[in-house]
């Protein structure tokens, strides 16, 4: 090899090494912060995990490492290293791997898996080993029963969600825009809890529910229910649904030629793919939590960064809260370091400013974020209710199916 070439290689090698040090990924010079989790890559939970949590975890890691790493109090910046596997939507696999992460790999922090049921299983393990766990995809009235001091739920729970739903419907009725409701719910934990929360609120608001039907997870035909609602003269479809049944309900409503004034679903509607699937899905309503128009610092930037990195938008319900959970951890680690007890103390006592708005935990529940209802309007999922959080006004009756 010529002298010139050797020199060239040395300089480039040196340059590359310098670059890697600058990027914070040095070889053993700065100990990384190890964060562990499982996410479902296969099985029924994989759809939600891949939309709401996965992209936000990697986005945050990239942003933090670009700054040189996570700021740890008293230690400067340390790069973030993720240790993760696919839990196959199996609770046993997830539980076992989290045990491994906490006892064998001795990770500094953990992030939650996807879904309420998984979070139940894993939260118990996290609590046992004293690892704070912030869950942006756990929604259930049973969380209160669980009372695990190290678990924090970020989303609005079934009761506040139904409060928002019924609040909006009551307002619409007062304006004379709706009269009769057809209620359908999936008989899985979430659907049943929403239904149980909804019933007293609906009664109290004096709303007329003409027909109530439940259906199993994975039902292949909702047209009998929809035909029944249509025949009963309902002008509101209140569907406490999951994907893919929210998609099925939407296609079938069109196919049975029913276009009620209000088509209100639950989960899965706030996902961009739902909007794209139904050519804008104008007028369809669902559970909301966030959109890029909210007057919160950093919201627009978060949206743009997500699209830039993943070529897909964050969803309009829990995505922002998944990202928020990481912002919260980041702030805690910056202020109290990696001592998990101190992090927990800070979680219990601080109000955090995040892209999802202010978040404060009381007994592990986020008391700052209310349940919200949104509606697809001209390509954006506008928040309609509560009025204090609204970014748009309801379009009722909904336009014709696209």
């Amino acid at each position, binding site marked *: 090899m010529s002298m010139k070439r050797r020199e060239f290689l040395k300089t480039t090698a040196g340059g590359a090494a310098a670059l890697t040090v600058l990027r914070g990924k040095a070889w053993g010079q700065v100990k990384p912060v190890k964060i562990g989790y499982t996410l479902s890559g296969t099985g029924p939970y994989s759809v939600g995990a891949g939309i709401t949590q996965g992209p936000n975890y990697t986005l945050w890691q990239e942003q933090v490492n670009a700054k040189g790493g996570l700021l740890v109090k008293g230690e400067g910046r340390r790069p973030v290293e993720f240790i993760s596997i696919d839990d196959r939507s199996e609770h046993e696999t997830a539980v076992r791997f989290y045990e491994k992460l906490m006892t064998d790999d001795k990770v500094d922090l953990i992030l939650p898996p996807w879904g309420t049921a998984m979070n139940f299983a894993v939260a118990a393990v996290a609590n046992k080993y004293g690892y704070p766990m912030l869950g942006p995809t756990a929604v259930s009235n049973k969380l209160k029963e669980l009372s695990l001091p190290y678990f924090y739920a970020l989303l609005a729970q079934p009761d506040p969600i139904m409060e928002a739903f019924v609040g909006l419907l009551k307002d619409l009725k007062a304006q004379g825009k709706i009269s009769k409701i057809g209620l359908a719910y999936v008989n899985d934990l979430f659907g049943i809890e929403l239904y149980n929360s909804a019933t007293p609120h609906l009664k109290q608001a004096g709303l007329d529910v003409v027909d109530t039907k439940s259906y199993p997870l994975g039902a292949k035909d909702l047209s009998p229910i929809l035909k029944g609602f249509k025949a009963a003269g309902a002008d509101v479809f209140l569907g406490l649904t999951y994907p893919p049944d929210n998609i099925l309900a939407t*296609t079938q409503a069109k196919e049975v030629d029913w276009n009620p004034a209000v088509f209100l679903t639950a989960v899965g509607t706030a996902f961009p*793919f739902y909007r794209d699937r139904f050519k804008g899905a104008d007028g369809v309503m669902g559970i909301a939590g966030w959109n890029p128009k909210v007057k919160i610092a950093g919201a627009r930037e978060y949206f743009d960064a997500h699209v830039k990195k993943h070529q897909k938008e964050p969803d309009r319900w829990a995505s922002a809260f998944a990202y928020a959970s990481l912002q919260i951890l980041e702030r805690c680690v910056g202020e109290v370091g990696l001592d998990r007890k101190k992090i927990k103390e800070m979680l219990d006592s601080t109000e955090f400013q995040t892209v999802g708005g202010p978040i404060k935990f009381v007994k592990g529940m986020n008391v700052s974020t209310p349940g919200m209802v949104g509606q697809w309007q001209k390509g954006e999922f506008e928040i309609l209710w509560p009025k204090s959080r609204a970014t748009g006004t309801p379009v009722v009756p909904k336009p014709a199916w696209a």
Partner: protein
Amino acid sequence: MNPTLLVDIVVGGLITGGIYALVALGLNLQYGLMRVLNVAHGEFLMMGAYLTYSLHTAWGVNPLLTLLVTGPASFGAGLVLHRLLYARVLAAGEAPEALESRSLLLSFGLLFVLQNAALLIWSADLKGYSYLSIPFRFLGSVFPANRLVAAGVALAVSVAFYVFLKRSFTGKAIRALMQDPEGAQLAGINLSRVHGLCFGIGIAMSAVTGSLISMLFELTPFIGLPYTVTALVVVILGGLGNVVGSLLGGLILGLVETASVYLATSDIRLIASYGVLSLILILKPSGLFGR
């Protein structure tokens, strides 16, 4: 009973049943003839569905036209898989139980491989498209045009196959092998070749059903297994090895399920299916038309 309700149930049941019949027919060919319990049957349905999805969304090909691709492609794949995997097991000349268990394990292996392949190619996100998602008024009620078309095509394919079995020379060879394997071989019918053919046809039926289903439902790599299960139920209901049994069994199951959803609640759909299956098996342990 309100006449619209009757129409809803009967037409709805035939729609669901037509689809069940085709996927069951494919499984029946494989199991009835070769005693191969192909638990990966539904995975080929899933692949066929994704293939049609891709062709339609990427190049705008009419989903019905894609059948001309998925059908032959899956038939070819079936022939190859038979040659590579099952023929080896079947040729080993072991006791039938060992054969069954080995081919069962092979099928499980195939199931994992196919699901992972689909996951890598299309990811786990829900995918779907709308085709003929318009109301069609018929006999006083309204049905989705796409479901009517899908069921119609499925029934047409099933009937065409039945005619093929009854009239063509190959069809007769297949029937002969099904009824009397030794005698048929003595008469000069090549066992391995007919097996390969039937395996291929079975896979093709599954894939074609998948293509039709892609017009109606969202796809994930995990939609296969429930269809395999339904196919198994129909095959048992109608009687193993009996083609007409699968056709009628599929329609009956479709009617039972639809009736239960309209008359009671959606929740008891599966309870009703298994209830009817149990009833039939109590009365006739080898299925409606089984020997």
